[in-house]
Every structure is written in structure tokens, then in C-alpha cells.
């Protein structure tokens, strides 16, 4: 019986001992793989790469179609080029923008912890870039209460677009002064490789973009002119080297935006509207963007120059006896992987076209013409093209003192730049896009995406308020700056 008692005692003490051993459980349950804190610079590259890659693909999938640059081919029915939108058309935009805003939230907080003003500024610039895309796509969106689930805000309110714009502009103004400080950048930076003077130019160029975008509601010309007149205080893009263009080599981890070259090249045709305009300009950008169309002559395909098919067609293309121009794969997925390609956040040409529009509105036609021509040159040179000496001698290319002319070139300059062509069309109505009877909504272009479906379930009260203040949650509801 002695042994029995001893063993029971031993066992019981072992059991008690067990409980004591759980002390190191906190250590065991600390993830040895992932970090709990980051430096603010750590979030720049994933955000820049993620945004540029997603929106480069979206420009091809969405903006090309709605703005008649190119379209899926074959396309028997539906398709964005016929203004076919679904409830979920904007889901990816919603998810992507908030996903990267989440990185920005961490960047802001890490910059505050470490007291690095320059990264507060970078966070502001990137936040404004992303938030602008988001609000221009949807209208009122959660912003001031967004991204705060950790603070138990699981149903953020939707801020009015007017407020979002005011906040963005204010933040960009502040960031401009922060960039002027002493701080240096010294981390990973896919966009500008730690050249903070370029970040500052991007910041202020975005300021121009957003002042102009809301110009229907809040007069912007005078404010923009102040910026243009004070380059020391407000440095902006002055060359393609300054532009917010991400160079992607295609070598991991910097993979091209498409999984395979075929995914960019196949099953797409260039649209007649886009190609005809470039043809009228005898434009040197064409070979960079597309292939030549071919036609069968005596059973052999013969190149017939650049030719597109109409967007919004009937679905039956049997009347078109040629193979239309298709995207030039080398632009986005070169045969020789390792060749850098460009994914554009904001091109330099956009700044010149903003200047041209503002000068034109102020009656400064000479300055407008200079800016217009600089914008066109910048855009052509951005591809590595050369502007022919007689380019502006062409009636179609010559500055003619109209906004329409500026906006046509701006449209061409914004090729492959996320949704900017669409936003600018909604703001100005230019370029004048052909309509066809096969388009939905009687050819009236949708002006926004519907809110992500899940939002109605996850955040019903605030969703209802947003719908009320927006005047609906429809493809044709106009956002604040468009009204």
C-alpha cells in the first residue's frame, strides 16, 4: 500500500506541476515568423506594386472598354463596352483600395511612433492617391471611420465626397510642407527609390488633379494658378522622369501585371474610336500600343495599317473582313522577360494638360498652347517615341483653343492610367464617344459603380444613409463633383 500512496502522490504532484508549466505558453504562442511592428517604409513597396498592378489590369479590363480604347474580341453580348455593368463590377476596386489603405493606416501609425515626418507625408500622398480613386469610383465612401475594426468600429459611416475632397486637399497641402523638412527617406521604395523631392512633386501633382476634379463645384483655376506660379513652394512634375511611373522588370517578385503574355494579348481587339483618332494624328504612339490589322488577300494576310473594330457593336462582326489591331504584348509583357515595363500612377503629361485647361479657362491661350504641346510631347516620349517635326502641323493635332482638343490629347495621354479617362469624361464630356444602339441604358454611360453588395449587409444603417445623401446607389447616380 505504501507504493500506492507514493505513486498517487507522485502523480498528483506531476499534475499540479503540469499547470505550473503553462507559464511558457505565452512564449510558445508568440509567432516566431512574423513581426509585430514595422518601420513605415516597409509598407511602401507592397502598396505601390499592388495598386499599380491591379489598376493597370483594370485599365485594360474596364477603362479600355468603357472609353472605347479596346474591347474583348469576340464579344457576342454584354461587356463593359456596351455599358454592361453588374452589381459586382466595383467589388475589386473597393477591395483593393481598402486593402492598401490598410497598409497606409499602419504606415501612418508607424511614422507617428517613430516621429518620421517624411513618412507621414508619403502616407498622405499615397492615401490621397488611393482615396481619390475610391471616391471617384463610388462617391461617398467610409473614410474618417474606416479601417478602425481594431478600435471596435465595425460599421464605419460614409463620408460625403465633398468632405473627402476637402480632407484630401488639406492633407496634401500639409504633406507638401512636411516634405520640405529635414527628414530623409531610407527604406524600400519601389516608386522613387527614396528621392523625397520626387514624392513631393507627386504629392503636389495630385493636388492639381484633385483641385481640377472638383472644379465644377468649387472654383479651382485661381488656386491651381497659385501653385503653378510658385514652383519653389509647390514643386510639381516637370518631366517624364518625375512622373509617378512604376518600372516593373517581370522578374520575381516584380512580376508583370498579367500571369501570362497571352492573357494580355489574346481575345482583345483595339477599338475603332481610339485607333481612328491616333490615325488622324498619324501618331507615333501606335506601334508601341498595338499591332497592325491584317486582311486576307489571295489567301494571305496582308498588313493594312492600324484598324480597330467599333465598341458596342451588334455582336455580329461578319461584315468586318479584316483582323483588327490587337494589343502589342511588348508594352505590358515583353517576350524577353526582364525588360522593364511601365505601370502608371500619374503621368507627367496629365500635369501639362491640367495646366493647359486652367490657362485656357483663364484666357491665357499662349500658355495653354505651350502646355498642350508639352503634354503631347511628354506622352509620346513616355513610350520612347519621337515626336515628328510636323506633328503639330496636322490640323487634327494643332492646338485650336478648344477644351475638346486638350481633352482628346489628355484622353490619349491617360491610356493605361487606371480609371482617369473615365473620370475625366464624366467631368468634361470629352472626348465625344460614339454611341451605338447595342449599348445598354440607351447609350448613357454609367457614372459610378454600385457599392459592394456585402456592405449592405455588414453596414446596413450607414449604407442607407449614404444612399440617401448620394441620391441613390445606381450606376447612373452622379457623384458630388459631377453634379
Amino acid at each position, binding site marked *: 500500500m505504501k507504493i500506492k500512496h507514493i505513486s498517487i502522490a507522485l502523480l498528483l504532484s506531476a499534475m499540479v506541476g503540469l499547470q505550473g508549466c503553462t507559464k511558457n*505558453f505565452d512564449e510558445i504562442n508568440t509567432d516566431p515568423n512574423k513581426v509585430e511592428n514595422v518601420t513605415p517604409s516597409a509598407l511602401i513597396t507592397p502598396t505601390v506594386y499592388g495598386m499599380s498592378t491591379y489598376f493597370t489590369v483594370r485599365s485594360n479590363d474596364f477603362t479600355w472598354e468603357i472609353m472605347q480604347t479596346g474591347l474583348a474580341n469576340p464579344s457576342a*453580348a454584354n461587356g463593359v463596352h456596351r455599358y454592361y455593368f453588374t452589381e459586382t463590377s466595383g467589388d475589386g476596386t473597393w477591395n483593393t483600395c481598402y486593402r492598401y489603405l490598410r497598409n497606409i493606416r499602419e504606415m501612418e501609425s508607424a511614422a507617428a511612433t517613430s516621429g518620421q515626418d517624411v513618412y507621414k507625408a508619403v502616407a498622405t500622398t499615397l492615401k490621397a492617391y488611393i482615396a481619390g480613386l475610391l471616391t471617384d469610383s463610388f462617391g461617398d465612401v467610409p473614410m474618417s471611420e474606416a479601417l478602425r475594426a481594431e478600435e471596435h468600429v465595425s460599421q*464605419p459611416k460614409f463620408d460625403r465626397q465633398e468632405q473627402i475632397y476637402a480632407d484630401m486637399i488639406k492633407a496634401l497641402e500639409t504633406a507638401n510642407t512636411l516634405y520640405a523638412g529635414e527628414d530623409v527617406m531610407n527604406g524600400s521604395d519601389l516608386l522613387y527609390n527614396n528621392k523625397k523631392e520626387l514624392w513631393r512633386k507627386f504629392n503636389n501633382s495630385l493636388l492639381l488633379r484633385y483641385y481640377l476634379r472638383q472644379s465644377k463645384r468649387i472654383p479651382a483655376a485661381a488656386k491651381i494658378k497659385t501653385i503653378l506660379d510658385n514652383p519653389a513652394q509647390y514643386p510639381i512634375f516637370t518631366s517624364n522622369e518625375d512622373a509617378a511611373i512604376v518600372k516593373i522588370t517581370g522578374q520575381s517578385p516584380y512580376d508583370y501585371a498579367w500571369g501570362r503574355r497571352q492573357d494580355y494579348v489574346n481575345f482583345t481587339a483595339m477599338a475603332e474610336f481610339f485607333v481612328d483618332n491616333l490615325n488622324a494624328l498619324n501618331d507615333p504612339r501606335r506601334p508601341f500600343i498595338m499591332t497592325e490589322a491584317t486582311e486576307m488577300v489571295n489567301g494571305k494576310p496582308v498588313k493594312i495599317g492600324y484598324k480597330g473594330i467599333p465598341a458596342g457593336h451588334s455582336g455580329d462582326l461578319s461584315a468586318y473582313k479584316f483582323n483588327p489591331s490587337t494589343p502589342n504584348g511588348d508594352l505590358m509583357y515583353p517576350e524577353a522577360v526582364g525588360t522593364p515595363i511601365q505601370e502608371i500612377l500619374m503621368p507627367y503629361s496629365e500635369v501639362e494638360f491640367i495646366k493647359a485647361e486652367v490657362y485656357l479657362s483663364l484666357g491665357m491661350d499662349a500658355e495653354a498652347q505651350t502646355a498642350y504641346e508639352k503634354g503631347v510631347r511628354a506622352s509620346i516620349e513616355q513610350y520612347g517615341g519621337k515626336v515628328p517635326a510636323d506633328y503639330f502641323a496636322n490640323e487634327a493635332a494643332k492646338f485650336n483653343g478648344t477644351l475638346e482638343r486638350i481633352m482628346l490629347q489628355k484622353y490619349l495621354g491617360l491610356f493605361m492610367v487606371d480609371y482617369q479617362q473615365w473620370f475625366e469624361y464624366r467631368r468634361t464630356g470629352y472626348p465625344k464617344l460614339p454611341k451605338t444602339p447595342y449599348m445598354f441604358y440607351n447609350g448613357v454611360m454609367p457614372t459610378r459603380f454600385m457599392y459592394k453588395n456585402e456592405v449592405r449587409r*455588414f453596414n446596413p444603417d450607414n449604407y442607407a444613409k449614404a444612399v440617401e445623401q448620394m441620391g441613390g446607389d445606381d450606376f447612373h447616380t452622379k457623384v458630388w463633383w459631377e453634379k
Partner: protein
Amino acid sequence: MTSSFHRYSGRTSRAFLLLVGLGFAPAAAHSFSPHGNKHVWLNQQKVSVSGTVLDDNTHQPIAGVTITAGGRPLTTTDNQGRFTIQVDAGQQVTFQSVGYEPLARKWSATTTNASITLHSSDQKMEEVVVTALGIKREQKSLGYAVSKISGQQMTDATPSNWVDAMKGKVAGLNITQASSGPLNTARINLRGDRSLDPTKNEALIVVDGVPLVNGRFSSGVTDAYGAGSSGADKDIPVDFGNGLGDINPDDIESISVLKGAAATALYGSRAGNGALIITTKSGKRNGKGIGVTVNSNSSFQNVLKWPDFQYEYGQGNLERNANGEQYYSYDLTEDGPSTRSTSSAWGPKFDGQMFFQYDPELETTGTERTPWVPYKDGVKGFFRTGATYMNSVAFDGGTDKFTARTSLTHTSNKWIMPNTGFERLVAAFNGSANLSEKLKINFKANYTNKSSDNLPGTGYNNQSIAYFMIFQNPSIDLNWYRPRWKKGKENLEQIHPFSSYIENPFIIAYEMTNSLVSNGIDGMLQGIYTFNPKWELMLRSGINMRSDRREQRRPWDTANFPKGYYKQQDLFYMESNTDALLSYTDKLSEDFSLRASLGGNVMKRDMKEDIGVARGLISPGVYKLSNALTNAVAENKLIKKEIQSVFGLVNLSWKDKIFLDVTARNDWSSTLPANNRSYFYPSVSSSFVLSDLMPMPSSVSFAKLRLSWAQVGNDADPYSTSKYFETSIFPGSAEAPSVLHNENLKPEISTSTEAGLNLAFLNNRLTTDINFYYNRSRNQILTVPLDVSTGFSKALINGGLIRNQGWELSVSGTPVKTENFQWTATANWSKNDNKILELTEGVETPYQIIASSGSGAAEIRATIGGSTGDLWGYGLVRNEHGDVLIDASTGLAVRPTDKVKIGNAYADWRGGLHNEFRYKNISFSFLLDGQYGGIVYSQTHHKMTEQGKLEHTLKGRETGFIVGEGVVDNGDGTYRPNTKEVAINTWYGDYYRRANMETNSFDASYLKLREVRMEFGLPKSLVSRWKMNSASIAFFGRDLLMWSDFPMYDPETAALNGATIMPGVEMGQMPSTRTFGINLRANF
């Protein structure tokens, strides 16, 4: 919500077939002959009988057999199974031994060489089963359902993954595999999915008391659908197998399947989904020195079923020449422009005409037109006859102090796909020593070495052979691909002369390899000290260790890897379990006896994964990390976890008629926050032997009622309670987490109730077991979706309530039993009903996506009132009469805006029927099993239809147009028949588009002739002349026949999403196999 469901043919016929197949039971019942002998022997003459008792399977002598006559024990057999008795002539003598059916014999005269063979019992009442913690219990004392599979059942028709051998043999056991190659990892599920997390529904595997590392480790790709994906790793999942598949079936003595939580409360959390308790063979004290068993098994595999490929039309996309005729031209020729780049077979009919086609010599267009003919071996010819050779030798023996068994088994497998297969060596040792009267030591060690030069990639992506099989055209000769590389362009330019999406299949097989070297060690040391008959202490420590070295090679010039790719993945996994168990056994009174135990367990788990990736290679064909185009990327992952437990159990029995078990366990898990770290769960189970408690009709030989109630707790995944940044593939970078951690996670609790009735009739000639269970799992640790505007896309919460209830039925009978002939039949049937009662408390989530594949084409959505197997996707739009709506302008089916429930991945019921016929030394057996209900969404069907590869796409070929069956909405509430013609390629591509789940999903009911076996035991005379104990030769077949409406390869399939097997979805399936084999066994 239901949608009417697209099928090839009715479901009723399938049900009928299954019912007929399984409907043996009533018929068999009639064939019983009256049992018992009514003769009265008046002659009281004594006779002397001596002889040997042998096991009818192994022909080994059985020691310790109790021999009784007239209810009086006479003697027991000695170590050689010998006995000598004196009985009255004609008196009934009964031979009884644990694990065998009792046998009664009579002798009218003195006999000296009586040979008694006892038949091992499968589901008989006196059977001993191994329960939790390796405790052996009499089945009648158990208050919960246990099914037992004998080791022999596992080797009757040995498959290359032994897990397959359990199919159809246990009611409620559900094995899901992804048709992913030779290792074909299984998801083993008992009684339905209890968790909304698809990775948490698998049964625990325990080998000799030590839990087994059954984890699958993803090869790094988490979606079986990967075509066109962008990002760093555009590869496909590879099935590298798991620890379970490596158990050597020849070493298995028996498997106890513990289905409910009551059976498994003592294994803690991980056994919440039931457990398979595997006992391996140990040495026998046969007193004849060393026993040697040699077993040689050879089997051959071919493809069980092909889809209905069409061989009437070749490559093309309806291209017509100037005369309006369909033509083909590999390149631009005088016939017209090239038509070669499409993967579709909407080209010209094979009509004996001539076209300019590919010339493999020139590697481009031929100079002459060649006949336009189908190549029926274009896909089928790629596969070969597979072969598996398994050879084992086992030695066993012992003295009264020491017994041991050791075995060596070598398996080599050549799978049906060229250059795939594996080789495996398992060395096992199992020893037991009685060091003194009081101390017994058990020792076990197992070494497994598994290697493969290439295991096939699975799923739908350029690198899988399944993808090639879809894209290959009937007008293309497979042989054109054989040279692999263009002349003079070795490793630089592959031969894939048609669509650039298609990889050369021989490059897939021979150059895109996925190799594996795996070494595993399992060991266990156990000491049992018996203080006195009442007190016993057991201490045991077991370890389970595995290391995998995997390599994935992708050459240059492939669609997803223009510059190649190389990955090394090293895995180390270790789990140790240390147990202590103190037991007390006593008879409390004449009627009551008690066994009580108190124990503890410490479980430690340690996992490390090291990955080195070269995303792009400088020199093609050189697979070294130093050859990386940019710096090779290293990623690693360390995961640690520890659980400490204390548990107790009390078994009470009253007169061996009523049994009561009470268990309790408390766990402390490292994965939960400090204040919720400790959790307690109890169980109660009881068994009533009704046949001993109350009078029964004479036909009832045994009756038992079981009732049980149990809870089981479960913890979280490691590192769920704090915030961590996601690692980024970019240097010097990180990303904000997407899942909101939870500092207050609580343990999950699932509660089950079970009732069962066990009946035996006619002296155990007919036994039945019926079981009902009801299980509710609540407080599940789930990741629920959040809207991303909150800053997270998912949050970890406790929530959800899932109910599983169901029936299990098994019937076993011996309709015919004579001296020389015996027929036994066993049938089992099970039905599980899974229902989600709650999702997340407080959060309005009408549904939650549990799993998805095919770019969201197929989703498993959890909804309140739905089930965890509900498949959701887009269907067709119908009017109130059920007619399909067609868009008047396009002639195509109108597309819906919302996804609907298309069906459920789970079977309504499953069943198996096993029959065995034995005549003297010859036995013949077959097993049928099947399921009724459930659907499978087929990506392969979608793609092959879109590309015109299947026979059903022949409709409309003559005209080139299809007028879709359906109606057009007039806009005023009326409808008119659709009359719009649509080009066939557009029609099939649209109607069967990937996102149309309805048109691409099929009834998954099937009936399979799972096993057939014919065994000949060599005659005794021959055996003894060769100094053998026994020898046999057996011929067997597996999966010989299948009846199913599923149009692709096999309805038994799933999607392998990395490490998760998603049921109900076929995503780039490979053919399943039919096996023929021969088995030779000799015992010395």
C-alpha cells in the same frame, strides 16, 4: 433555395441499382437453415479426443482456447494449440477464444487428430476492441459505437494507398480524395463535418496509442484552379502524401473506428471528429521458435473510365474558306490563314479530306496536304499500365518473457502517368518484455523512407496533365509532342505547336517534376507496472517525426514560367506525446466491479518549413538555387504548440450486464489566451446487455443497448491571439494583416449524444448494429468575413452552431455454414444530416464562404439552415414554368445576377455490401459500395464542352448553329419560344461557361465493384512437406466496375486546394484506376 438540377439521366434508376445491390439482407434472412441438432443421444459412452486448434486465416495454432462441455470448462489449449479431452460421445464441445467465433463440435468416437479451425470474429459480441489510450475492452461493455476492421481486410485487395481499403467497410466512414495521383491523400471523415473550417473535420489517427502526424503540408499553392493567375507562384498543388498513407497495411493487426466523441474524449480535442485506432502486429508466443511470413503482392492498374470524347471533328473554330467550307490550315497556306492556335475542336469533320497539317519533321507546316484523321490515342495513349509491387517479410516469435515482431516492406509504384510513382521502405519493430512479474515493457519503432522522382501536379493549370487532357485536340497526334524540345533548342524552346497555352505533355511528365524524399520515424516506449492485482501504472512516451525534402522544377519556355522556376521545400514535423495512467481495478461487491484511472498527457508539436525559391533561372535546365535569375528567395515558417492534459475515467459494471463509463478531461492549450487556456469536458456512456437482463425470444442470442453523451473541447490555431504583420515577397517590406486577431478566443465545444442497439440472432448467425447520433458543435473558432472598409477582410471569432445527426446500420450474417462451405455477408449503411443552426452571434451574415474554387465559380457557402456542403454558383434563369430564359438579341441563356444553391456535395447516404464464400481452402469475396446523392461540379466538363471535345457537343455540328431550348420574355408576362440561331462554339462556350455551375454539375451517385478476391490456400499436405505453416495465393481486383452518371472520370473526387480538400468540386481531375493483382503469402 433550390434550383432544378441538370443531369444526364434520372436519379431514380441509380437509387434502384443501389438498393438492389444492397438489398441482400431480407433475402439472406430467408436462407437460414434451422439451427441445432434435436437428436437425443442415449449412449453415454466416453470418448477421448485430441487435436489442434488453428486460426482459419493464418492456420496458426491458437493457444489458450477454452474448451467446455455441458457448460463445464474442461481445459485450455497449450502453446501449440493442442488439447486432449474426455467427453461423452455425442456431447456438444465448445471451443472459445477471445476474438474468435465460438465453435461447437461433437464426437461419437475417440479421435486423435482432430483439427479445429476457429474463425476470427468481425463484429461479434465477445470481441475485444482497442479503445482510447490503447485500453482493450470487451465490445459488450462499450456504450458507444466502435467498428473494427481486421488487418486482413486491409490486405485483401491491397491498394497503393491502404486507406482506400477502408472504403465501404465501415458505416459512417467517409473518405474523400482529389484524384491527385499515386499517393492520393485522403480526407477521412466520420459522421459528417462538424466545423465550418474545412480543415478541422478529419478523424484522428492513433497508432499503438500514439497520435499520428496525419497533416498534409501544402506544396505552397492554395487553389486547384490556377490558370492565368498572376503573382509570384503560378503553380499547381502537388499531392506529396501524408503520414497516414505510409502505414504498412501488412503490419496492421486491426483498426478500431471510434466514431463518436464519447469514444474519444480521452484523446482530447483532436479526436473530436472520431478516431481510427490502429494496432500493429506484435510478436506471438507460438513456442515454435521464429515465425516467418513472406508476402508478395503485385498489382497492375489501368484507367477505369474515360469521358466520352468525340472523334468526329478536329481542331478549329468554325473557320471557313472562300467557298464557305470549313477548312484547316496549320499555318498560312494556299488553303487559307492559320487555324492552329485555337484549343477548340470546332473544326472540320473528319471526312477523308486532306489539309496542310503540322509536320513533326519540319516542326512546322507540312509541304504536302495530309489526311485529316482523328487520333484516338491523343489523350488515352499518354497513359500506361501502372504497377505496384509490395514485398514484405516479417519475423515474429517469443518466449514467455519476451516477444517481438519485426518486418520489412518494400513498395514500388509506377503510376499510370509516365514518369510518376514512388518507392517506399518501411522497417518496423515491435517488442514486448516481461522484465518481472510486475513490470512489462513495450517498445515500438518504425522507420519509413519514401521517395519519388516525380509526383503529378494536380488541378487546373498549365503544368497539370489534366489541363493537357482538356486542351488536346482529336486531330493531333500525341507522338508529335514526343521530342519535347525543338531541334537544337534543347531546354530553350518546347514543342507545343498549337495553342501556346498548352504545355508539351512529355515536358510536364519528364521535366516539370515534383520530387520527394521523406524520412519518418515513429517510436513508442511503454512501461506497465503492476503493483498488485488492483493497482497498475502505465507510462508511455511516443514520438512521431517526419522530414520531407521536396523539389519542384519548371523549365524555361513554359506558359507560366518563361524563365523557369525551381523550388525547394524542406519540412520537419515532430510531435511527442507523454502519458501517465494510474489504474485501479477492483470488485466492489459480488455484483459490482470497478476500474478507475487517472492520467495525464503532455503533447508537444514542432513544425518547421524552409522554402527556397528561384523565380526564374539564369541557365535553363539547371535546378539550383544559385542559378536564380534574381536572388533566390528564402521563406521559412516555424510553428509550435503544446497541450497539457489531466484526465480521469471510471468504468463500473454490474454483473457484467450493465456498464457505465464516466470520463473527464481538462486541457491547457498554448494556443488560447491565458484566461481561456483551460477547458474541461466530460462524457458518460452506458451499455445494457438486454439479453442478460430480461427474457428474450430464443432466436435472439444477444441484445445490447448503448447510450452515451459526451463533450469535447477544441483549441485554436497557433498565433491567433495577437497582431502580426504579413510577410511580403518584397525585400524590406511587410503588409498589414488581413485577419483581425482575437485576444479573447474561447475553446470550441461540441456535444454529442448517441444511442445504439446491438442484436444477434440464431446463435450469432445474424448480427445487427443500429446507431443514432446527434451532435452539436458550438463556439467554433472561425474566421468570418468583414467588409474590408473596416480595415480587415476577416476576423477570428467564436461562433456558429452546427448539428450533425444520422443513422448507421450494419448487418452481418452467415446464411450458409456447413463443414466445408460458408457464406458470410456484411452490409453497412449510413446517413448523415448536416445542418447549420447559427452562424455568428450578433453579426448579420446571411452566408459565409467556406471554400471556393474555379475563380469563384464554385463556392461552399454556409447559410443558416443550410449545410456545410452546400454548393453555390450561378445557374440558369427560368420563368415560372421552369423554361430557361433566352436573351432575344443574342440567343444565349440569360445570366442571373445572384448565385443560388445548386446542390450539396454530401451524399444522402452511403452503403457497402461484402460477401465472402469459403469452400475448404478456397475463398471468394467481393465488396460493392456506393453513395446516393450529392453533386460534383466539374471544371473539366465545362472546359471540354466549351472546346467541343465531348460527344454531347456533336449536336448542331452539321449546321454550325444551335437554337437554344428556352423561351424569350415578351416583356408583358408572356413568353415565346426562342428561335435565334447561335454559332455552336458560342453556344456551348456560353451555356456551359465556367461560372455556370448548374450546367456543369452532376449527380455524384455511384456504385462500385470495389473489391473482388479469390484465394486458394495450399493443401495441408503440400504445406507441411515444404515445412510451412500455411501458404496461399490470391487474385484480386479493385474498382473493377463503376456505375455512375458522372460524365468525367470518377465521381469520387474533390479539389486539392493546397492542403485543403474541397468536396463537391472536380478541378482538373486525373483518371482513376482499376487494379488487378496477385498476392502470394507463405508462413513458416
